[in-house]
Each structure stands twice: as structure tokens, then as C-alpha cells.
């Protein structure tokens, strides 16, 4: 018997290979050489830059590879770039923070690179099994990163909670895929599912509905949508702050990439059903996230609930399911990456001494002691609240106009009302910083170059992407053309 191995080109998964090899190299160098290594962050950034160049080089391709296992298309590439940006900004934030805790280890950077590889797999999957494998590579790396401060009880709690609930959510996802396999008569290729799943077949309908429900649970957990959000505040609070930023931004982006691709490609025949389901989820997610965030006094918990709310806004774009909706998912994830990592950068700078200043009242009077830092935080808070001229405003504008365009007027109204609610708790931080006297002397803040550079870059980018959204809009428009049903 002969075995013909399918033809493939390693170039089409070049960015994955670069990141994975970079991670393995870090592990080997760390294990085989003695002494403290200070160059891992720079090396990781170089590897990420190389992967970004490879992605840009691939731009414009439109095919599948490895026996139809991965898509090589612009939708995947744009997500690659967003994910690489998220990972790079996280690494910029990490170094001084880890040193404070005495945990500046090579494995940290290797695990971030591996997690990014997993996320890229999710964004490019053309088959359910690749989505699952990508999800697991990402999740296992992030579980460990959440518990990276082993000596800290809260970090342990975060890792354990995330692991146990995450495994549960993965099981839901797998069950969904299994039922889908039955419903489609034995295929899990995303492009084939659409052809095979039609309303007509008697068995297909109930099984597909069940599969859609289970897939929504699995993806909903990863994007922290209500009612699958229970883990979010505790995990985000307990995890190292740099990893919280990474989780809020990159894990969410990767999960939305797979979520959008599966639902846009595979279930056009069932759009009535999943639109209704996600409509309810979107409203619940936005409302709960925003209302509960008001009551938080720990800044990491507040940003956790805010990240739940932002998942709700992106779900609105998913419900709209038109071309503008898909574009706004991409745009919003870019904007969210910039403004959220920036906000966490400020949190890291202010917190110091093993996270001793995490209460929001520690920010009182920050503007008098550190005007630059307060200005940066104010930009991020305005952006997260969705004020012009920041990227957050443009993102919300795209999302809600997509919803209106698709005829979901009420959803758009509820979304706008929700962002009004969110203005309260975002502006509270700004008010505390500028209009209150300092409650306690914060003392000198060590402006380490990498973290400062990250905060400045994200603040400038948040404003620039908001003022000139056109170039990214065109890129995103170009990349969502791959969905024929939109």
C-alpha cells in the first residue's frame, strides 16, 4: 500500500513556525546555559516582528493548505497581526513587573509565544479539529501563565479556577463538534458544513441546534460572555497583571476569530436561530458587565467587568452578521487591544511593590503627582467609554451602525444605553485623578523604559486609530470579503 502525503507549503503557516521555534529556542537556551538571561524579552519581540513580516508577506493569498486544514486568507492574517500586537505589547509590560515578583523566567516568554501560536491556529482553522487544538494550545499556556506567581494564593486560585472551568467549557465545545459531525453526516470542514447543514433533513435540524448551543457555550466561555463569565473577575484579579491584559485582549480576539469564522461560514441555514441566541447573550453580557463594574473598587476587577461588557459589544457585531459587522469585529478588537493593554500598563506602573496599589482610590490626585501618567490613563478611560476622537468611539460607531443596518434597532439602542452606563465608572477614575486630593502619597513611580514606551505608544495609537480609522477599515473590508454569505 502506498501512502501519498498531501502537498503543503510551510510558508503558509510560516508565522506559526517562527513563533513556535522561537519559543523552543528560549526554552533550550534557558535550560542549557547558566546565569540570568536578560535578553529574552528582546528576543521574543524580534521573533514576533519576524512573524509579523511573514504575515505581511503572505497578505493577499487566498487558499487552503495542508489538505484543507488551514485557511490562508486575509481574515486570518489580520487576526495574526492583532494577536502579534497584543503579545508584543504584553511582553513590553512584563519585564519590570516580573522582576518585582522575582519571577523573570524564560518560560514566561516561551509560554506567551506558544499561546500566540495557538491563537493563530484558531484564527486560521478550516476544520473543527484545528479550532479545538488551537484552543487547547492557547488555553493550557494561559492557565499556566495565570498561575505563574506560584507563591501567591490569588494567582493559584486564578489558575485553578480557570483550568477547571476551562476544561469544562472545552468539553462543551467538543460535544458540540461531535453532534455537528453527526448532523453533517461525517464532516467537520467548515466550508463543507454550510453545504451539508440544511433545514430540510429531519435529523440534521435538532442535532445542529444542539451543536450550535454547545458551541456557543464553549466560545462564550472564552470570550467571557454572560452567563459564562463567572470565572472572569476572580481570574483577572488573581493572575499577574500583564497576563490579565493578555487574557483580556488576545484570548478574546482569538476566540472571536474562531467564533466569527464558524458562525459566518458554517451556519447560514440556521441564521435565525443563532441570531436570536446571540442577541440575548449580547444584551445580557453588555448589561451585566457594565452594571456590576460600577460597584467595583479594585481596578483589576473593574477592568475585568469592563472586558465582559466589551465582549458584549463585539457580540452585537456578530449578531449583525453583515459586512460592516465583520469589519467592526476586527476594528473593535484592534482598538480594544490598544486601549486595554494601555490601561493595564498604567495599572502596572501605579501598583508597584507586589501590587499594593490596586484600589481605585489610590488613583486620587494622580494628576498632581504624575501628570503624564494621569493623562495617559485618562485617554484609555475615555477610549474605553467610547468618547470621540478615540478608537473606542469609532469602534462602537461601526458596531452599532452595523446593527442598525442589519435591522437590529433595539439591540443598537440597548448597546448605546449600555455605553452611557459605562461612562460613569470610566470617568470616575478620571475624576479621581484630576479633581480629588491625593488620599495617600503614592511615592515615586519607577518609569521603566519598556512599560513607559508601551503606555505612550498605546495612548498615541488609541487616538491615531480613532482619528484615522480609514486605513484599517479598508484592510478589514478587504479581509472579510472571504465570507460569501455576508
Amino acid at each position, binding site marked *: 500500500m502506498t501512502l501519498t502525503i498531501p502537498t503543503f507549503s510551510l510558508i503558509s503557516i510560516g508565522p506559526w513556525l517562527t513563533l513556535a521555534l522561537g519559543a523552543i529556542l528560549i526554552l533550550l537556551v534557558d535550560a542549557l546555559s547558566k546565569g540570568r538571561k536578560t535578553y529574552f524579552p528582546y528576543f521574543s519581540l524580534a521573533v514576533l516582528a519576524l512573524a509579523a513580516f511573514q504575515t505581511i508577506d503572505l497578505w493577499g493569498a487566498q487558499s487552503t493548505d495542508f489538505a484543507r486544514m488551514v485557511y490562508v486568507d486575509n481574515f486570518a492574517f489580520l487576526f495574526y497581526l492583532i494577536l502579534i500586537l497584543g503579545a508584543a505589547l504584553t511582553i513590553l509590560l512584563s519585564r519590570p513587573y516580573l522582576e518585582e515578583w522575582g519571577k523573570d523566567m524564560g518560560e514566561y516568554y516561551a509560554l506567551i509565544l506558544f499561546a500566540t501560536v495557538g491563537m493563530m491556529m484558531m484564527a486560521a482553522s478550516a476544520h473543527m479539529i484545528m479550532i479545538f487544538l488551537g484552543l487547547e494550545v492557547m488555553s493550557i499556556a494561559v492557565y499556566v501563565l495565570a498561575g505563574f506567581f506560584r507563591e501567591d494564593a490569588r494567582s493559584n486560585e486564578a489558575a485553578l479556577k480557570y483550568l477547571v472551568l476551562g476544561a469544562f467549557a472545552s468539553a462543551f465545545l467538543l460535544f458540540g463538534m461531535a453532534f455537528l459531525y453527526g448532523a453533517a453526516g461525517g464532516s467537520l470542514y467548515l466550508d463543507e458544513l454550510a453545504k451539508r447543514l440544511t433545514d430540510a433533513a429531519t*435529523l440534521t435540524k*435538532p442535532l445542529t441546534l444542539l451543536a450550535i448551543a454547545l458551541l456557543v457555550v464553549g466560545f462564550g466561555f472564552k470570550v467571557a460572555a454572560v452567563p459564562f463569565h463567572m470565572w472572569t473577575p476572580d481570574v483577572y484579579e488573581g493572575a499577574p497583571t500583564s497576563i490579565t491584559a493578555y487574557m483580556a485582549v488576545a484570548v478574546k480576539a482569538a476566540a472571536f476569530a474562531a467564533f466569527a469564522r464558524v458562525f459566518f461560514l458554517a451556519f447560514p441555514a440556521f441564521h435565525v436561530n443563532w441570531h436570536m441566541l446571540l442577541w440575548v447573550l449580547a444584551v445580557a453580557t453588555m448589561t451585566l458587565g457594565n452594571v456590576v463594574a460600577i460597584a467595583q473598587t479594585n481596578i483589576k476587577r473593574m477592568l475585568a467587568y469592563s472586558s465582559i461588557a466589551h465582549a458584549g459589544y463585539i457580540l452585537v457585531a456578530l449578531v449583525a452578521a453583515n459586512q460592516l459587522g465583520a469589519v467592526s469585529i476586527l476594528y473593535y478588537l484592534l482598538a480594544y487591544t490598544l486601549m486595554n493593554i494601555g490601561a493595564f500598563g498604567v495599572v502596572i506602573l501605579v501598583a508597584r511593590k507586589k501590587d499594593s496599589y490596586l484600589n481605585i482610590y489610590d488613583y486620587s490626585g494622580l494628576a498632581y503627582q504624575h501628570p503624564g501618567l494621569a493623562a495617559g490613563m485618562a485617554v484609555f478611560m475615555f477610549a474605553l467609554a467610547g468618547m470621540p476622537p478615540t478608537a473606542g468611539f469609532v469602534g462602537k460607531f461601526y458596531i452599532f451602525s452595523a446593527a442598525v443596518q442589519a435591522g437590529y434597532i433595539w439591540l443598537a439602542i440597548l448597546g448605546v444605553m449600555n455605553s452611557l452606563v459605562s461612562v460613569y465608572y470610566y470617568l470616575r477614575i478620571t475624576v479621581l485623578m484630576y479633581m480629588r486630593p491625593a488620599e495617600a502619597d503614592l511615592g515615586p513611580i519607577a518609569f521603566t523604559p519598556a512599560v513607559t514606551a508601551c503606555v505612550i505608544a498605546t495612548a498615541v495609537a488609541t487616538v491615531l486609530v480613532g482619528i484615522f480609522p480609514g486605513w484599517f477599515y479598508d484592510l478589514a473590508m478587504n479581509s472579510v470579503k472571504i465570507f460569501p454569505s455576508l
Partner: protein
Amino acid sequence: MMAYIFFALAGIALISGVLVVFQTHPLRSALWLIVNFFAVAGIYLLAHAEFIAAIQIIVYAGAIMVLFLFVIMLLNLRQPEEEAARPWFGQKLAGITLAALVAFILVYGFSKAEVPLAKAAPPGLGNTESIARLLFTDYLLPFEVTSVLLLVAIVGAVVLAKSKLK
């Protein structure tokens, strides 16, 4: 004949599965889980999936269960001293309703339709060979990606478990 064996195995799997959940002592749960694994392996055999059946016995009933039992032994788990928090009535109701709903959908779906059967292995090829063939053709990439997954898991376990460095 096959139908009788199937229903017997399925019954054992269901009952032992329920017993796993309802034991108070973790050791007993683990032992019932072994019974469950064997019953499921029998069902795989009936479906002509000999390879999966063998793997089920070797990996799950063998290796993983030994690991479970070791962990239970090392942690020295006894009967829980205090009762775990009772679930609310609402939680029970929601769980039972959802389970009933899923059961209804499955029974309704399958009773109404002709179930398509999985493709049999091509003649001259055993079950193991067909799996190997798929792993190196259609599923080449997922197969390789699995190695990345395992590497990440190993690195993660070492990071969390290794003794303090400084």
C-alpha cells in the same frame, strides 16, 4: 445478538457513570470509572473500532486510572468531614430541565430520521491502518500540532511544579 451486547454494555456504562458521580469517596468514584471505561471500550469494539478500544483500555483504564489512584492515595483523601454545600433547589431544577431537554432533542432527532452510518474501512485495511493512513494524509497538520500541545503542557507542568529557583 449484537443488539443485546450493545444494550448490555450501554446499560453498564450508564449505571457505572451514574455511580461515579454519586459516590462520596473519591476512590470509589475512580473504581466505578474503570468499569465505565471497560464498557465503553466494548462499545467501540462493537463499532469495529478496535484501535480505539485498545487505546481506551491501555491509556484510560490503565495509565490514567493508575495516576488517579496514586493522586488520591498521595493526597490521603478521606470521607469529607463536613457536608459539601447543598445545591440550591433552583440549580437542581435547571440542571434536570436542561438534561431532559437535551435528551428530548436527541431522542426526537434520532427517532425521526434514518441515521447515516459511518463509512466502513476500505477492504484489506484494518482499523489501525486506516487511522494511521488518515493521520498522515488528511489529518497531517492536526497530528503534528498535537506535539506542540503536548510540549506546552509539559513546559507548563514543569513551570508550576519545579522547586524554587533562587
